[in-house]
């Protein structure tokens, strides 16, 4: 295309054409739903960009885990560059060590949650996070269909429920976080076994909260009561018994049909790293599946 010179009036045709193209794509995707014509395109982009995201995330992980480290090297000056480079290299190694140590602890935790819940888990790392500007709280994990992951699987970490898989590509999968506004989870109160529905508020920070609507309007809710998943038919999208959070506030008005409570999730969504995806026990995966006490690569065997 020929660029227009500064004084010249740009042609409107290009703009109109592109706007129409955008509207067409939006319409096709909205009307199509899950069988939309955009879906193959999405898969193709996911298949290509997935490994790129995995690689980028792996390369920068020691740095992004320690934002403070990033800030110190940001102010590198010419005259001390050599010393600072040496210093930052050492700091980087240190950061890597502590990240590895944390990760080992998380893996231990995942093993423990597999033991306590009895579910088989595929371990995966969070490699990308959807920007808040897109108004949906999603993350990419570095395990896809090759690791045995499909849509509508439960994702958890050693603290509790993280969310569910909404789509899986070859080497990556997209997880809709519990705190997303589109996310609805069936939850059960620990003390009274009352059931209700949890909705996200869309915020991931320290003030991340979920709203609980109890089915039984007369049910009593007490603060600090714990909440676990209720479970869906055949465990999709949510398996039963995964801890979600605790009650931090209760509100009930006569006008409302149900009792409402505010839940603080156990999971810290702003620092997600290692997560586990609940899979069938006989799933074939490209990595070791954590099966309540033993991993599938245990050659000694017999531990199951």
């Amino acid at each position: 295309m020929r660029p227009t010179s500064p004084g010249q009036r740009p042609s409107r045709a290009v703009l109109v054409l592109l706007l129409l193209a955008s509207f067409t794509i939006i319409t096709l995707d909205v009307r199509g739903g899950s069988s939309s014509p955009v879906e193959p395109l999405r898969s193709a982009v996911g298949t290509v960009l997935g490994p790129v995201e995995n690689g980028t995330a792996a390369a920068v992980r020691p740095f992004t885990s320690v934002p403070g480290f990033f800030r110190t090297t940001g102010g590198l000056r010419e005259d001390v560059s050599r010393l600072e480079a040496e210093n930052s290299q050492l700091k980087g190694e240190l950061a890597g060590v502590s990240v590895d140590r944390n990760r080992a602890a998380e893996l231990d935790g995942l093993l423990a949650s597999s033991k306590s819940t009895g579910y088989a888990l595929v371990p995966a790392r969070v490699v990308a996070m959807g920007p808040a500007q897109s108004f949906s709280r999603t993350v990419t994990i570095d395990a896809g269909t090759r690791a045995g992951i499909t849509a509508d699987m439960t994702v958890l970490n050693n603290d509790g429920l993280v969310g569910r898989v909404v789509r899986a590509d070859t080497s990556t999968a997209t997880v809709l976080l519990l705190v997303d506004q589109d996310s609805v989870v069936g939850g059960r109160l620990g003390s009274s076994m009352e059931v209700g529905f949890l909705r996200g508020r869309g915020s991931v920070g320290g003030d991340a909260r979920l709203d609980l609507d109890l089915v039984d309007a007369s049910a009593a809710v007490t603060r600090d009561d714990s909440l676990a998943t209720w479970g869906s038919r055949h465990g999709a999208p949510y398996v039963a018994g995964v801890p979600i959070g605790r009650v931090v506030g209760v509100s009930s008005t006569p006008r409302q049909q149900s009792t409402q409570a505010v839940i603080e999730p156990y999971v810290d969504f702003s620092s997600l790293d290692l997560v586990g995806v609940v899979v069938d026990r006989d799933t074939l995966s490209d990595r070791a599946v954590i099966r309540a006490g033993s991993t599938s690569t245990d050659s000694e065997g017999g531990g199951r």
Partner: protein
Amino acid sequence: MSAVRALVLTGIVLLAVVLQVTVFAGLSFDGVVPNLALLVVVGAALVRGPEFAAVLGFLGGLAIDLAPPTHHVAGRWALALVVVGYLAGRVRQDAGSSAVSAVLTVAACSFVGTSIFALSGMLLNDPAIPVREALKVIPVAVLYDVLVTPFVLPLVMRVFRRLQPHQVAY
């Protein structure tokens, strides 16, 4: 030569999209990250004009719409960035003149782009974005985009000047 140029352009756009979901995810402010693809489009608009930037905005927006981990209707960021590219291209005579006006252009574009995206979400109910949430996110997004502008925009503009065909020398 033009095939090489197209390849480099695709590379730049995809790099911006991948960086903003991976690297900047660790540096996000309450989930808000700098919209690098938008900065690339604004840079292209200031160097090459509205038509080129609108086309690049469409492709960049589509890349954001389709790259994992998105979970919204495809085409919404494409729509927003087409408008951004066109608007930035229209004001480029003023915006290209000084650093301050370039930063102001980025701020305006960031506001317009994020707002169009939020509005399209409200219209389509995908997801049902409360106005409160949008009003909280948009200022932070504008601020973060402005903050990274001095580091990203000059680089982007230099690359686009290098990529410009030689016969147009102004």
